[in-house]
């Protein structure tokens, strides 16, 4: 029983690490633009599909695949920003969101046109079996996932707290009007935030498909939903919250799956989100806001 609990916790944290990465990207965009980007996941999916296409054609190596995923995702993200968010900057949040939904349809169709099968193999990160630690097992991919997530968080932390770009990003999240008043060029910040968020999403997407060993068109919707869910659990627009929310989502899913099965797993996550919104809409983890 205890062994199972700990094993579930390990599995949950692994999944949670991926969710956290997805949520950070999602939160960056939401925090800075105050807009929901439904095309966030589909852009990641398109990036993974582009890499898979290259793999099918030319059998390229792991690092090249990762680079391709990154480049294609950032490109798709830039396209989404130009078409769905730049034109709606001072206008309706709903229109921007619906536009990002329309582009979602486009990206998904594009991906399935290039690779029409429902499922494609994606080269695994590590071919061997799971590592065993006493009674527990841990997949090598899980370790990579953790390591990369931690590294990505550290890099983001450095970027946000040690650079001029980071200062502008935090200023816009904190108090958008004041950010404009101190002379921050908002459109330019948005473009770069999209690039960073897309890159983080690409890292998450690459790790997810490489540990699953396959890509499906479901990845788009799945990434958007998980990223949004984790962001909401952690509190809208808070970056530390996104990490906590991602890990919490992973843990909740792993444990409720073990206790109640896969359908109840999803049910629990949504129920929690609903209850949280109804009872504590500012999220579990929020930065102090006065004045």
């Amino acid at each position: 029983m205890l062994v199972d609990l700990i094993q579930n916790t390990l599995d949950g944290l692994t999944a949670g690490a991926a969710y956290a990465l997805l949520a950070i990207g999602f939160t960056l965009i939401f925090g800075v633009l105050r807009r929901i980007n439904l095309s966030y996941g589909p852009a990641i999916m398109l990036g993974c599909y582009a890499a898979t296409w290259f793999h099918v054609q030319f059998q390229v190596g792991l690092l090249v695949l990762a680079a391709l995923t990154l480049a294609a995702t950032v490109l798709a993200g830039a396209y989404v920003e130009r078409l769905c968010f730049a034109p709606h900057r001072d206008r309706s949040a709903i229109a921007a969101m619906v536009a990002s939904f329309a582009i979602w349809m486009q990206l998904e169709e594009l991906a399935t046109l290039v690779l029409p099968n429902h499922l494609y193999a994606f080269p695994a990160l590590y071919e061997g079996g799971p590592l065993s630690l006493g009674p527990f097992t841990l997949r090598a991919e899980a370790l990579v996932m953790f390591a990369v997530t931690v590294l990505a968080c550290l890099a983001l932390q450095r970027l946000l707290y040690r650079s001029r770009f980071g200062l502008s990003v935090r200023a816009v999240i904190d108090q958008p009007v004041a950010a404009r008043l101190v002379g921050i060029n908002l459109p330019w910040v948005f473009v770069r935030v999209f690039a960073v968020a897309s890159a983080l999403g690409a890292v998450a997407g690459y790790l997810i498909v490489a540990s699953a060993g396959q890509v499906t068109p479901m990845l788009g919707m799945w990434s958007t939903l998980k990223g949004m869910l984790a962001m909401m659990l952690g509190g809208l627009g808070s970056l530390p919250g996104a990490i906590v929310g991602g890990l919490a989502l992973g843990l909740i899913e792993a444990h409720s799956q073990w206790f109640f099965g896969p359908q109840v797993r999803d049910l629990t996550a949504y129920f929690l989100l609903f209850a949280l919104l109804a009872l504590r809409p500012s999220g579990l983890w929020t930065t102090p806001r006065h004045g």
Partner: protein
Amino acid sequence: MAKSALFLILALASLPASAQRAQAELACTPSNTDFAYHCVVRLSRGGQPLPGADVSVGADMPSMPMAHNVRPVKAKPGKAPGEYQARLDLEMLGEWAVKLRLRGPVNDQLILHYDFDEKGARPVIRSGRLPRK
């Protein structure tokens, strides 16, 4: 051989269950065009082949059946009694809900779930307990 045996078992199993309602089975082979299939529909009622029906064949995507669907086509009578032939022009591979509209001896609508890939189409059997990816 094995396939026809399976067909027989299925037909027998449903014999007492539905004396009135029509049953259908689908066999599809890919055509030269992408996502297009030559399909044979076998209609039966009470275990007996059901000829002479007016059959139109369409297909929906399970999520978004109202927007993602295939223009229904009229099926032509096939080689054996109770067999009907139609060409299905799908938009993509994967799971489709094939929709048969029957008129004539029966007036009914049947929905069959098939998974389409490069080789053909297989019926989808979902346990309902598998995790969704």
